[in-house]
């Protein structure tokens, strides 16, 4: 039975709260306080709260009576009765429970009382016994006191005696140690005795011992020094030696010096070994060497290894650089590291003990070490640099790079050993210098290669004559394939050759930046090497060099037709043009990709290079036109100047020189056609071969100078020709040409015909002289129109020539047009 009634009850408390209150009341009873009580008390200030402390039955009753109906009151009463009953039974249960607990507690307390009484008795007994023991003990110590004092004294004497014995035996012992080379023992023994001996040195016996010891120790020190000096001993021995000597008061500075000078002598030996090798290799530097280039077998311009010493061949020196560096590393650098390590072990990192600590040895020793290392490293570096400088052959870069890598890597050991040392950074500088030098070498090698290639091209051109001349117009370049390489073949092979060479050089140089190379992450190799070195110093410089050397061909050849074969000029011009259109950007893109060039510093833009290449191409082509024009001009000029035009016979043939001119022009046409596109011609009449010409010769030409033969109208010629000129454009003879065949040929023909004109104007002609010129010009007209962009140009110039000849003619009676045609048809 629970206290609370389920529904009809009016108490404000709900069921769980009521139960909690019961518990809390119990807790209160047992002295257990709960935090929640205050709240509950506040809550129960209501006098109608039946469970609250301020419950007022009067008020409650009044309230009930006021509020409730009779029926409700009845209900309330019965409910109240029920609650009272349940509370009663609860209380009873609790009372019972607590009563039992009290009973058992009382029992326990009674039992404890008995136990304590027994314990008290035993404690009394113990204290009595202890008192007896104390008394006895006091009596015993009283009796033993004298003996104890004696024993203490005796033991003191014993110790002293043993010490004395040690002292007296010391010389002998030291000697023995000396004999057995047990230096460490000797030193430690002596050290122990030293102070005492020093202290009692006024006593003769001790003095003797001290002197003896002194002598022995001196001897010992001597031996140690000797051992130290001999240096044959291991590092550990040496270190022991130094340790002992230091303990023997040997000045540390002297020891350092000795140690270092000793080490130096050994390192010097290494260096001398290296130097000797260096000299050897210098003497045995010449030698055959294997061809490194993978030259395409039948390539017409593979560099002739016989003529020039190809820089791409690696010199077979006595030892290659890798061996050299290896030797340097294994002998010198590792010895140096050992020396540094043992030196540091001996002088710097040793535990500071006793008086030695005060002398500040490490600082002094460290200073000495740095000087020592720097001096030796400097010599080593100079040797390495000399060796690197001997590395002229640029064939196999990997060897050098590996050598440098090893060189650089081994120096890192020194960084670890000797943190503050400048040696590794010097080493890096050497590597950087070597890389710079390498780039220069590669550039000059490329340049040499380019020159050699051109020489080969020259030879190929000069050799059994490019077959175009013989193959005449119809044959074209196709026929020349079997014997000598044609121009396009030469061009492609030259261009491929250069490109391949450049690529292989790039690949070689790229080794410097490979990931597994220790120095590749140095700032120089990440930045400047790629941009200023490889891109600018190598690639751009080489391209510029090509352009420049091409331009030089134009300048040097100015006199007397020049020594450069025209075909070479043409080929180079095409090469430069190809560079402008594609090759340069290809090469630079390739370089940028390979080297991930980050342009911190301004670099030459592709466009500038292209412009330069184009300019070179233009210059070369202009020069080609000039040279070819000059060759034909010379023929024409000689033919006009040397002939007696007044007293010549009636023309029966076209003069041989004209045929030669046409032939040469044709072969030039073929030659240019091999490398350059056709180009555009000005639109001309449907078939302008003969018809146009006949139109020209029958109508225009006759109109042009027919009237001048009649003495009645002397001015017409000038008038007509002037009117003609007024409407025709001015012709620039030596003017820049376009990059196509027609333009080139037009240039050449212009030059030739203008020369012809000027030469005609300073001669005087007889009747047949004029007729011969007529025939020649007609012949030229028949064949030359097809080469030029605007055939009117040829018409015009030939008109001028015939007109001038007519003017310069003493007896101007021209030949019948039909006769001219017949003669020309006949060839």
């Amino acid at each position: 039975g629970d206290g609370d009634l389920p529904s009809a009850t009016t108490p404000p408390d709900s069921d769980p709260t009521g139960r909690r209150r019961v518990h809390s009341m119990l807790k209160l009873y047992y002295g257990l306080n709960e935090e929640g009580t205050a709240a509950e008390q506040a809550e129960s200030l209501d006098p109608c709260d039946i469970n609250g402390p301020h419950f007022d039955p009067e008020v409650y009753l009044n309230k009930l009576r006021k509020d409730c109906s009779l029926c409700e009151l009845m209900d309330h009463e019965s409910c109240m009765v029920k609650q009272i009953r349940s509370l009663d039974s609860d209380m009873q249960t609790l009372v019972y429970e607590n009563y039992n607990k009290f009973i058992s507690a009382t029992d326990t307390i009674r039992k404890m009382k008995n136990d304590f009484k027994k314990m008290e008795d035993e404690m009394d007994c113990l204290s009595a016994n202890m008192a007896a023991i104390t008394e006895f003990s006091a009596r015993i110590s009283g009796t033993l006191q004298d003996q104890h004092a004696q024993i203490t004294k005796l033991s003191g004497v014993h110790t002293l005696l043993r010490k004395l014995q040690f002292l007296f035996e010391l010389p002998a012992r030291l000697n023995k140690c000396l004999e057995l080379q047990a230096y460490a023992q000797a030193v430690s023994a002596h050290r122990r005795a030293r102070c005492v001996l020093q202290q009692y040195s006024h006593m003769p016996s001790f003095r003797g011992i001290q002197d003896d010891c002194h002598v022995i120790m001196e001897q010992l020190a001597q031996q140690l020094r000797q051992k130290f000096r001999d240096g044959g001993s291991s590092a550990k021995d040496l270190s022991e030696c130094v340790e002992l000597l230091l303990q023997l008061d040997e000045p540390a500075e002297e020891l350092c010096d000795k140690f270092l000078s000793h080490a130096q002598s050994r390192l010097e030996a290494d260096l001398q070994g290296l130097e000797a090798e260096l000299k050897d290799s210098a003497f045995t530097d010449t030698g055959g060497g294997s061809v490194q280039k993978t030259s395409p077998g039948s390539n017409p311009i593979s560099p002739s290894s016989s003529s020039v010493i190809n820089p791409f061949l690696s010199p077979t020196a006595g030892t290659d650089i890798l061996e050299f560096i290896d030797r340097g590393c294994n002998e010198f650098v590792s010895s140096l590291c050992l020396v540094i390590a043992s030196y540091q072990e001996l002088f710097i990192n040793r535990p500071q003990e006793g008086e030695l600590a005060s002398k500040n040895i490490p600082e002094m020793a460290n200073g000495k070490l740095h000087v020592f290392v720097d001096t030796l490293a400097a010599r080593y570096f100079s040797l390495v640099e000399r060796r690197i400088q001997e590395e002229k052959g640029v064939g196999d870069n990997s060897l050098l790079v590996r050598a440098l890598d090893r060189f650089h890597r081994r120096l890192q050991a020194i960084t670890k050993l000797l943190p503050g040392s400048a040696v590794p950074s010097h080493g890096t500088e050497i590597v950087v210098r070597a890389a710079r030098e390498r780039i220069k070498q590669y550039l000059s090698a490329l340049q040499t290669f380019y020159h050699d290639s051109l020489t080969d091209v020259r030879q190929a051109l000069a050799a059994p004559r490019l077959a175009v001349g013989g193959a005449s117009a119809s044959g074209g370049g196709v026929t020349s394939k079997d014997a000598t390489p044609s121009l396009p073949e030469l061009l492609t092979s030259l261009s491929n050759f250069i490109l391949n060479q450049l690529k292989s050089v790039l690949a070689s140089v790229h080794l410097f930046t490979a990931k597994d190379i220790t120095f590749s992450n140095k700032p120089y190799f990440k930045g400047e090497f790629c941009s200023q070195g490889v891109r600018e110093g190598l690639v751009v410089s080489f391209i510029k060099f090509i352009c420049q050397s091409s331009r030089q061909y134009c300048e040097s050849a100015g006199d007397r037709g020049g020594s450069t074969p025209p075909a070479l000029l043409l080929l180079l011009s095409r090469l430069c043009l190809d560079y402008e259109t594609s090759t340069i950007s290809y090469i630079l893109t390739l370089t940028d990709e390979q080297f991930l060039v980050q342009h911190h510093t301004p670099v030459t833009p592709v466009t500038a290079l292209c412009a330069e290449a184009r300019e070179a191409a233009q210059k070369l082509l202009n020069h080609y036109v000039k040279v070819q024009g000059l060759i034909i001009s010379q023929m024409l000029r000689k033919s006009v100047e040397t002939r007696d035009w007044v007293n010549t016979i009636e023309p029966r043939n076209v003069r041989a020189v004209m045929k030669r001119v046409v032939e040469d022009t044709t072969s030039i046409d073929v030659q240019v056609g091999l490398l350059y596109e056709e180009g555009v011609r000005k639109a001309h009449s449907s078939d302008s071969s003969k018809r146009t010409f006949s139109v020209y010769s029958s109508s225009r030409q006759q109109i042009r100078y027919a009237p001048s033969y009649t003495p009645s109208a002397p001015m017409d010629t000038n008038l007509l020709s002037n009117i003609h000129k007024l409407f025709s454009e001015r012709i620039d003879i030596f003017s820049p040409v376009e990059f196509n065949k027609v333009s080139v040929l037009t240039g050449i023909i212009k030059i030739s015909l203008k020369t012809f004109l000027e030469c005609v104007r300073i001669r005087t002609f007889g009747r047949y002289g004029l007729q011969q010129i007529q025939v020649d010009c007609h012949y030229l007209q028949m064949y030359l129109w097809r080469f030029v962009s605007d055939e009117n140009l040829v018409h015009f110039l030939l008109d001028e020539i015939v007109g001038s000849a007519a003017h310069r003619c003493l007896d101007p009676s021209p030949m019948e047009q039909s006769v001219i045609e017949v003669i020309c048809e006949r060839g």
Partner: protein
Amino acid sequence: MKMDDDAPVIYGLEFQARALTAQTAETDAIRFLVGTQSLKFDNQIHIIDFDDENNMINKSVLLHDAGEIWHISGSPADKAVLTTCYSKTSENRVLTCAAVWRMPPEWESGSHESPDDSSNNPQTLELLCHLDNTAHGSVACVLWEPLGDGKRVISLAENHVLLWDLQESSTKATISSTATLEGKGQLKFTAGKWSPHHNSTQLVTANDTAIRGWDLRSMSQIYCIENAHGQLVRDLDFNPNKQYYLASCGDDCKVKFWDVRHINEPVKCLEEHSHWVWSVRYNHSHDQLLLTGSSDSRVILSNMVSISSEPFGHLVDDDDLSDNEENQQEDKGKEPLQDSIIATYEEHEDSVYAVEWSAADPWLFASLSYDGRLVINRVPRALKYRILL
């Protein structure tokens, strides 16, 4: 001072022409002489008087019936005396001869009376003497002794240098000394110039691609610039103010400047023409001004300050310095003078074979093209003032 004062004045001859000279002895009137080339008609010498004030040309024509004229040259002492080289055809053989002529005294007055009359009945030159020696072959040119008394001339014939003395009022010419160029092949002088320096004892000649200097006292070669030009050398001229400086031009389209003391390399080289350069002339007073004529039908006036006798511009006198300080400041502000092309004259439509500075007006020059067109031009006013001021 009108703007169109700078415009060219053009005069057309009826005949083709190559020979042009300024009337050297005439220092008052601006006068040029042109010799025509015609095989069919009588050749003429046109005397072109330029009226600077009115920008007009007055012409007179004299008949030169000896043959077509290849070269013409006026006496430095007597303005009525001139020489021509002309070709003469006899027995189907063409030979170029040279002669000294005197202009008739009336030509000047005659031309003013009625132009029609004078052109219809032109007066004829009076022959003073022939400079002939058929044994020596065709004459390329005749050179008067510069600044001389008009009594000594040199003719270049084939490979001979002939030094003539003119006596008895130039009516008699005798060869006083000769020199001959020996060598392989057919050597032939193409041009020559008598140096105004060194007391007129030096001559320079051109044959093929070589330029040679001669000492007239010993008639021996002093120096030789082999391959001075890539091709034929067409003309030469001495710098009037710098005794060792010399300009040459030729078929390689170039104009080269030489210091004859260092003949291995030209001092300077111009390559502005697009065809053969036929004529080169230093201005007589301001040697930075250089005139060239070419068969590309162009005349080019260049300002070669760097190798002139006034490389730093007009030297300021001490008086001017003390004048005022503004001048000095202006001088400092002036940019350094540089060699440059002043102007390219395109009035010709045929090859220009001759250019000449006026003897009277240093700012005026004439050029002659093969079609008979004579063009008179002036140095641009701006440049003129820059040189003068």
